[in-house]
């Protein structure tokens, strides 16, 4: 399977699929050292592995998307989520988002954008480009918990769909009861991701 794949769940032939809470590896991108410290802490408290970088360029370098080989092949550096500031010198968070979604290796990695400015066209632009969510700064613990839940329930969805096991029905029951997604699971599964993001943005605009 390609590097940068969100998550791989080994489905034993005859066994149960129990979804224990996996440790997400999050790449956090922010040019502010204060914000990097805060987001790192928030993610660590939420039991995530965290790598922080100070720019979009560094983020691409870390992922191995800047042309250099090397780093991208190392398994333990696999990233499950990217959280990035929007306003950064050089590559903005939006530019970074586009580059990631254009990459066949990394487009499946969910990207969350953070910004101190509540500009609706900006939010819509990011969601349209494939951002998973948009967080208004200052980021709080509740925001990170919500994102983590969203990512984990998305991954559980994907594993459900990838499963070819005979025990599929039993496994679905297990996953549905353990994931606490706020969306109606059965409808989310069949809707293409761009539409799902559109309905999420509608939900979000009403919250803002």
């Amino acid at each position: 399977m390609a590097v940068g794949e969100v998550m791989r769940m080994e489905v034993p032939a005859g066994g149960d699929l129990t979804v224990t809470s996996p440790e997400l590896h999050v790449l956090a991108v922010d040019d502010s050292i204060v914000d990097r410290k805060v987001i790192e802490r928030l993610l660590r408290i939420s039991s995530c592995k965290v790598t922080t970088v100070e720019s979009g360029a560094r983020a691409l370098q870390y992922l191995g998307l800047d042309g250099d080989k090397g780093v991208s092949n190392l398994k333990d550096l696999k990233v499950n989520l990217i959280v990035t500031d929007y306003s950064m010198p050089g590559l903005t968070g939006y530019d970074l988002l586009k580059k990631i979604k254009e990459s066949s290796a990394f487009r499946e990695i969910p990207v969350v954008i953070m910004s101190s400015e509540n500009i609706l066209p900006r939010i819509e632009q990011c969601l349209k480009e494939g951002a998973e969510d948009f967080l208004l700064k200052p980021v709080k613990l509740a925001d990170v918990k919500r994102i983590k839940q969203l990512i984990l329930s998305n991954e559980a969805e994907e594993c459900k769909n990838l499963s070819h096991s005979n025990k599929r029905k039993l496994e679905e029951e297990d996953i549905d009861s353990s994931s606490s997604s706020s969306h109606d699971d059965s409808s989310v599964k069949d809707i293409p991701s761009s539409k799902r993001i559109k309905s999420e943005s509608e939900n979000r605009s009403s919250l803002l």
Partner: protein
Amino acid sequence: MDAIVAQLQRQYRDYTISLYQQGILDDQFTELKKMQDDGSDFVAEVLSLFFEDCVRLIGNMARALDQTGTVDFSIVGASVHQLKGSSSSVGAKRVKGLCVTFKEFCDTQNYEGCVRCLQQVDIEYKTLKTKLQDMFNLEKQIVQAGGKVPQVDIN
């Protein structure tokens, strides 16, 4: 010993509440405290980074405003924007408020306004630094006297 601890805790509580009431801190500072577990210095570390940021960014602003020729307000504005961001992230309410005003003066290229804001921002971050130092000292005294630092309920 207990009477001393109780008195220090009372002092600490009153002092902390006053910082919020004066609008020096806001609930993002409360959020930072929530992120710290007992024994760690997370809040102090973040604030330390913030104060270093203040020195650096205010330095940038001062240099940009000190041009004998034309002032590039976009350079000043860029540093103000960064300071606004980090002050918001640590709950430094007054500093953040000043940055909002400062940014407007940058956008309208108001030189006097910018210079005034620069002076005020400099005073304000130093004031915050002193007050937080007093607050951290009280925490230390409480612990040294054998007590626990109380969770202060702002609301």
